């Protein structure tokens, strides 16, 4: 699930998180984002990662990390254990995104959720003209080996938040084109490749 190349999403998340915050990064991978947060923002960080390689890489970076899966992995944390819980480019791979989202806003004051936008125009074109499951640098898997099982679009996610009393404090739409940039124009559902949400409970 790791996005290759430019990490515009990292710099967006770095801007969202205040210095010294207590952070939980779900699906933290090799700890790249978390260690940037520790270094740049002095956060107290903790990661949860399912892959052994990821966990080893985090330990080598000096991060505090638990090996485990996110589905059900938050159950044991008391309410408001963290200021921010991050779920970046991982929601599409969890078994129960709805449960995970509500858990994020239980154990964290705020949630930072980065989603791939499946309604991105390239995906639409790919399916429309090729008649094949879309593949990009960012989502390089085949249909039979992808860990990604729950795709949504920006509109879908907006609607989910509305219906589930989740306040969207910020929504930052991103494109990886031209080295990665924040989209400020219209029709984000069509032009955003991904989006980072800052969420809280209504």
């Amino acid at each position, binding site marked *: 699930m790791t996005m290759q190349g430019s990490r515009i999403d990292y710099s967006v998340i770095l801007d969202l998180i205040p210095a010294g915050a207590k952070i939980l990064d779900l699906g933290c991978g090799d700890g790249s984002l978390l260690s940037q947060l520790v270094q740049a923002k002095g956060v107290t960080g903790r990661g949860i990662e399912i892959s*052994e390689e990821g*966990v*080893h890489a*985090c*330990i*080598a970076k*000096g*991060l*505090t*990390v*638990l*090996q*485990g899966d996110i589905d059900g992995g938050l159950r*044991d*944390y*008391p309410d408001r*254990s963290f200021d921010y819980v991050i779920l970046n480019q991982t929601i599409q791979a969890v078994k129960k995104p709805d449960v995970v989202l509500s858990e994020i806003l239980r154990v964290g004051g705020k949630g930072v959720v980065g989603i791939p936008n499946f309604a991105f125009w390239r995906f639409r074109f790919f399916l429309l003209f090729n008649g094949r499951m879309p593949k990009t640098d960012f989502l390089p898997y085949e249909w039979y080996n992808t860990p990604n099982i729950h795709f949504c679009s920006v509109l879908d996610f907006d609607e989910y938040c509305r219906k589930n009393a989740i306040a969207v404090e910020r929504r930052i739409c991103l494109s990886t084109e031209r080295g990665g940039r924040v989209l400020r124009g219209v029709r984000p559902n069509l032009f955003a490749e991904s989006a980072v949400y800052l969420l809280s409970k209504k």
Partner: protein
Amino acid sequence: MPHRKEAGPVGLVKKKFFTFCEPPHEMVLEGGGRLGPITVAYETYGKLNRDRTNAILILHALSGDSHAAGKYSADDKKEGWWDATIGPGKAFDTDRYFVICSNVIGGCQGSTGPSSVNPATGRPYALSFPIITIGDMVQVQRHLVDHLEIERLFAVAGGSMGGMQALQWAVTFPDRVLASIPIATTAKHSPQQIAFNQVGRAAIMADPNFNDGEYYGKAVPKDGLALARMVGHITYLSDDSMHEKFGRRLRGKKTLGYSFNLDFEVESYLRYKGDAFVSRFDANSYLYITKAIDYFDLTLPSGALAKSLEKVKSKFLVVSFKSDWLYPPYQSKEIVKALMVNSVDITYCEIDSRYGHDAFLMDEGEMPKIVKNFLENVAARNGIAAPAAGA
């Protein structure tokens, strides 16, 4: 900066002794008994730094001893039991840390145990030795650490029963441990684990030579002890590792013997391990130490592990192995959960090893690397200096 160099051996080492709790100042044990004088056998590798802050206490498992690394003489066939992880450039890097390992009380490798002579009677304690617990083992180690003038240990680390002691240290002496590394262990012994230990004890006690533990100077209950060890070894391996190690290969023959003599490699391996154990281990020590393990239950007195871990201040690295069915990962996860509830800085790693419980003792695999990285980072963050070179 961590220095990168080839890992090497610690070289020749010496066993040392420390005696304390002379009567009438005996140690009062958790089970109510009193014991004194107490001698503890220990070894050290590496050097203390100037602040005496770089000490790591290594904690051994059921059949281990103070000889964790190196050789006593150049002719020794084997190094200490955790030589894979202790030495210059290794996980417990003796260029940076002062590593201590002591034999537990109740043991038979130099520390006071049932085979020691009771000064009050002039005869071995045998079964008059008081029942000891993991907590008592840790209290004895605390005396040793005091004796070595170490105020706070940089780390405590061990696998299996050693992991129990690592947990106990963090609970009993929260201010005296900076980092705790329990590996392949549990916070309380499960019924299955107690059951295997009881089979071992029953085998020893059923041996005609057992004689209520009064066998010193006579024929020892070697068949019983060997049998106990054989059962133990089965639990340390995995189905996978037995397939790999033995398969159905025959030992010293080409065809099945159709008799009750040993046919299979696995049979002769267990026989060998059992017999080898008898030459170095005391049957009464096996009884006392397995009992201490069975009594281990950190959830007491409240029944809630999280409650027992409330005062913990150390950082933790908890490691389990996927194929370890004796101390399965779920037991490590229970420790992780209870520490998490207490907002302890904890890292957990479940290593994908095929070698069962024994994986924590093996040279290969990821565990030593993880431990090394973890320790280096904790040391750096807490300003734990390496000892001056040549000092």
